[in-house]
């Protein structure tokens, strides 16, 4: 077996070189359509400067790799990310995928057919897989770079039929290309995980995000997901609001997961929004896990070895193309 590599926007990088990975973040995050709004400005130079500053801060605090988990239709700008990666030295992994249903364009939901049947899983699988094997689309211009993972999400109120097609399509694309899948669950984390596993995708190729939501913690979802063999991502570190547990509670949860023997299935990230257009975004720094949260983990008695495992080893195992 040769060196395992991860698809970054600048090409394949040996997994050993990733360093500390923030596995669920957003660089440029644009609510679809906002780029067309009369009062939204898209100043590339300004966007670059803000993102470069945030990535430099991440690197200064020991960060190595940022995974942009926003998928193919939420502001992804491959060319900008290439320039950012070169300028800051931070590896950037970009994602394909879309979801949930209400973030899709009408092309996928009410196509010009009679009746207007929404896209099935197989078509999403093909759309996403080609972003890994042929390159990520710069709409109507070109393909650039290879997606490093497939990211999708389900509707909060519960997975819709089209969400299920997205999840199955994401799983099939992951199976055919070897990249991992990152899912944001809707109402029931384990249920939504089972959908992608039902496609035959090994649990070790799946990240379940949003497990630091209050409802997830109350339902015992983090432990259940890790026990199933998938990666449990507490990926809103730094966000303390009505919908999420606090950082102190997250630290306790990490300790609990390690105690239960799932230290090799925990991932941490902040879902920080580098630049948000058309929505409020999440104003947390990419370095928050390193600067603010790791000390909390240590207070909980989590050792250096476990911290390293969670921030470096786990993503190193997850992200390579298999």
């Amino acid at each position, binding site marked *: 077996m040769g060196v395992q590599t991860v698809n970054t926007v600048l090409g394949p990088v040996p997994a050993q070189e990733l360093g500390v990975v923030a596995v669920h973040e957003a660089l440029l995050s644009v609510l*679809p359509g906002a780029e*067309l*709004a009369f009062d939204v400005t898209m100043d590339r130079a300004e966007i670059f400067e803000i993102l470069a500053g945030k990535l430099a801060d991440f690197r200064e605090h020991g960060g190595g790799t940022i995974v942009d988990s926003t998928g193919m239709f939420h502001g992804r700008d491959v060319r900008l990310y290439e320039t950012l990666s070169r300028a800051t030295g931070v590896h950037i992994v970009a994602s394909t995928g879309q979801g949930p249903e*209400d973030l899709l364009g009408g092309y*996928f939901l*009410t196509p010009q057919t009679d009746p207007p049947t929404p896209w099935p899983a197989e078509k999403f699988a093909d*759309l996403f897989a080609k972003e890994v094997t042929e390159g990520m689309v710069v709409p109507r211009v070109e393909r650039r770079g290879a997606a490093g993972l497939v990211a999708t999400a389900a509707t909060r109120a519960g997975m819709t039929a089209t969400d299920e097609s997205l999840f199955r399509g994401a799983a099939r694309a992951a199976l055919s290309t070897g990249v991992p899948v990152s899912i944001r669950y809707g109402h029931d984390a384990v249920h939504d995980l089972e959908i992608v596993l039902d496609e035959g995708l090994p649990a070790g190729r799946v990240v379940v995000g949003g497990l630091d939501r209050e409802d997830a913690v109350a339902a015992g979802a983090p432990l259940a997901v890790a026990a199933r063999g998938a990666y449990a991502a507490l990926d809103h570190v730094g966000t303390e609001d009505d919908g999420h547990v606090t950082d102190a509670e997250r630290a306790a949860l990490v300790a609990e997961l390690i105690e239960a023997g799932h230290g090799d299935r925990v991932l941490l990230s902040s879902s920080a929004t580098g630049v948000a257009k058309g929505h409020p975004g999440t104003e947390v720094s990419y370095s928050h896990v390193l600067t603010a949260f790791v000390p909390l983990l240590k207070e909980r008695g989590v050792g250096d070895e476990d911290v390293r495992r969670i921030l470096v080893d786990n993503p190193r195992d997850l992200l390579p193309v298999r």
Partner: protein
Amino acid sequence: MSRVNTVLGPIPTKELGLVAVHEHIGYGMPGSELDTKWWKTPEERYEETVPKLRRFHEYGGGTFVDATGICNGRDVDYYRMLSAKTGVHIVASTGFVGGDTALPFFARASVDYLTEHFIHEITVGIGGTGGRAGVIKVGVSRGGRMTDLDKRIYRAAARAALATGAPVLTHLAIDAENAIAIFTAEGLPLDRVLFGHVDDGVNADRTRDTWIAEQGGRIGFDTFGYETELEDPPFWARPRQERLDHFLRLIRQGHLDRVLASADANCSPLGWPGVKGHTVNYIFEDLIPDLRAAGLDEATITTIFVDNPADFLTLQH
């Protein structure tokens, strides 16, 4: 001063000439830009588009109204170039073909925000292009009934029409009771609204065209050329003679001043295969000869293609 907004700036109404009132340079559902199966190079786009516009100009066509919504691949920089190089006036739309073609940012927006956006595109410009919209597009989502989002868009369009004097052009004229209720509640005279696609093969039977005309609305027979006689007709196709008879019937019933006609063709479709051989020039090559053969005189043809669109498109102040 009587004027119409084109992508290159306002022009006097008198300069519109013959108008194709519901056309597309290129239409695609939002998201279709992600699917490379539809991509064409700029060279291919120009090759498909420029000769059609040039031919339109040579036939005596004056103005091409592009009814492509905000999220459907509308490309005003491109339209400006095409207009400048072919001599065809192009009128662009603000608004949406239907709620199901509005992207999430707009789908979540309030009526006030949508109104402000439409007004901005009509009075200030579309993005950074400098081109201003000349009509407001609204429409009914797939499924035959107006959704809540469709209704918000109609209401915003009515308010923007009142504020700017721009007209409203609809995709589909089904569920017209709901549409007219909104326009009436907002105080928009119905002669500022062109109820489009009354003639399409899917909905013609359940479109209350004469009722709309009696309320004062304008009637768009604007899918001329999508015929079942075509080799590979789209699902909204209709037998050629049946559509023509339908059109002539409305005119004979006394609604000549209310009718407009167009071909709804794509010069170069963006997110669907298009219909081979169907172009805006159907108006000159098939429709006008058919109308003459049916006995319409030149004055009537001028009313349909010149006078009615001029009344409709002129910004009201």
